[in-house]
């Protein structure tokens, strides 16, 4: 069943390997600067706030709010040919960072800005687990 997964997947190397490695363990973690305490996403080598190269992957509360979205009615990538309509959604996390994701239990037409959501983990393949969200 898993061999049939047709959508594009992240490449599990460098910082993406670490981010998705935590997802695989069922944990949503973001980089947090060890010097100034700033959270960051997408993953970066250096803290853009203070220049520090020291960070750790700290656990997110997993909760956030819908910030914006689009409803893809016509798929523009072969991997999503059978998926439309679907909605790539931006969620603003309690930590302040935003993630691009999908809401698993809400039809695109029912999405609302500021709708509260929480993370769920979806195994795409044996190697890759994607962080998605559900309404709360």
């Amino acid at each position, binding site marked *: 069943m898993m061999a049939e997964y047709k959508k594009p*997947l992240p490449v599990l190397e460098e910082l*993406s390997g670490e981010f998705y490695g935590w997802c695989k363990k069922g944990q949503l973690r973001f980089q947090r600067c060890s010097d100034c305490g700033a959270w960051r996403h997408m993953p970066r080598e250096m803290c853009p706030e203070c220049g520090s190269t020291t960070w750790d992957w700290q656990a997110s509360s997993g909760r956030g709010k819908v910030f*914006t979205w689009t409803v893809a009615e016509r798929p*523009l990538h072969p991997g*999503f040919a059978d998926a439309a309509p679907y909605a*790539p959604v931006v969620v603003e996390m309690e930590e302040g960072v935003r*993630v691009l994701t999908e809401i698993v239990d809400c039809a*695109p037409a029912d999405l609302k800005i500021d709708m509260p959501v929480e993370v769920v983990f979806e195994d795409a393949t044996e190697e890759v687990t994607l962080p998605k969200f559900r309404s709360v």
Partner: protein
Amino acid sequence: MIDLKDRACIVGIGETAYCRKPGSGLSQLGLQLQAAKNAVDDAGLSLKDVDGIMPFPNLGVAEEFAANLGVENLRFATTVHTGGAAPVASLRIAAMAVCTGAANAVLIPAGWNGYSGARTRQTVSEDVSSLPGGKIARDYYLPFGLTAPPQWYSLMARRHMHEFGTTSEQLGAIAVAMRKHAQLNPNAVMHGKPMSLDEYLASPMITDPYRLFDCCLETDGAAAVVVTSAERARDLASKPVRLMGVASGQPYPADEIVNRKDIFETGLTIAAPEAFEAAGVAPKDIDFAEIYDCFTFEVLQQLEETGFCERGEGGAFVEGGRIELGGELPVNTHGGLLSEAHVLGMNHIVEAVKQLRGDAGDRQVTDAEIGLVTGWGDFGDGSVCILGK
């Protein structure tokens, strides 16, 4: 800062025919060579006079242009890697080159078989190296289905609708204005195909809130300009158009569209005040604007960030014919990427030159003296040029 105002000019413009079916019948390079040659001829220059070439990112190599065109003395070859913002941004680099003596005459070509060749939506989703954001987009956008330009930007459009009450009808007013202008332009792909607001609203949804007619055309075609110094321009037969102020900017972060503190702040937000200051004019002095219209909302957003209206007021600004010919600020007098052709925004520069030369035919803006052209690329890179007669 070194003042470049009026020290460089566009002296030549060239275009090919713009088309969809059956396609240009030329290679991507061949198409651009036609436009390039037309631009050099229009300038009254010989190809031997050209010593600078600035190809569009990923669409050509300067050495290849030079070898085909007989440009034997290529001294200046570079590319600005800001997608659709590149042609206007290249004007600035070309101005710097001709004012410092790094080059005498710089050719800036752009063009592609956007209809009969590979479509943008394919290249950006299949080739990570051509994808703005590179690995970030690959690892954090594509797996969730954010795969193509209209999807990236419609995230901003929806947020704008939420914060400021911008409506589909207002986006439609932009599409309708561009289409109206295309009826006056025989080289526009949508010439002879007028469109009403109702037809716009009835067009199928591509990526909500973007309908089909919010999206630019996919066409075959090329355009090019030649830039030289004001001094050199005086000796040429063509009517020069002055570069009064040019600037570029990038949003922060430029490689990622989701985590911006201010989601509406783009490269143009930074570039526009700089260009106006350099030119010594204000938005009220602009007679017409050619705004990079990859999608309708980007026009609205750029009108705001350029300072033609306040942020949040773009929706009201585009209504009531204000951006149509005869209105307060005619926008995309050629029909733009939405209704003339998608020539990477080089067609916007060419149109501005035609307007300032008084050569725009039925769509001529009366007494056009100062025009403004923007470029928009990748995740919101911006560029803007103010041009004078």
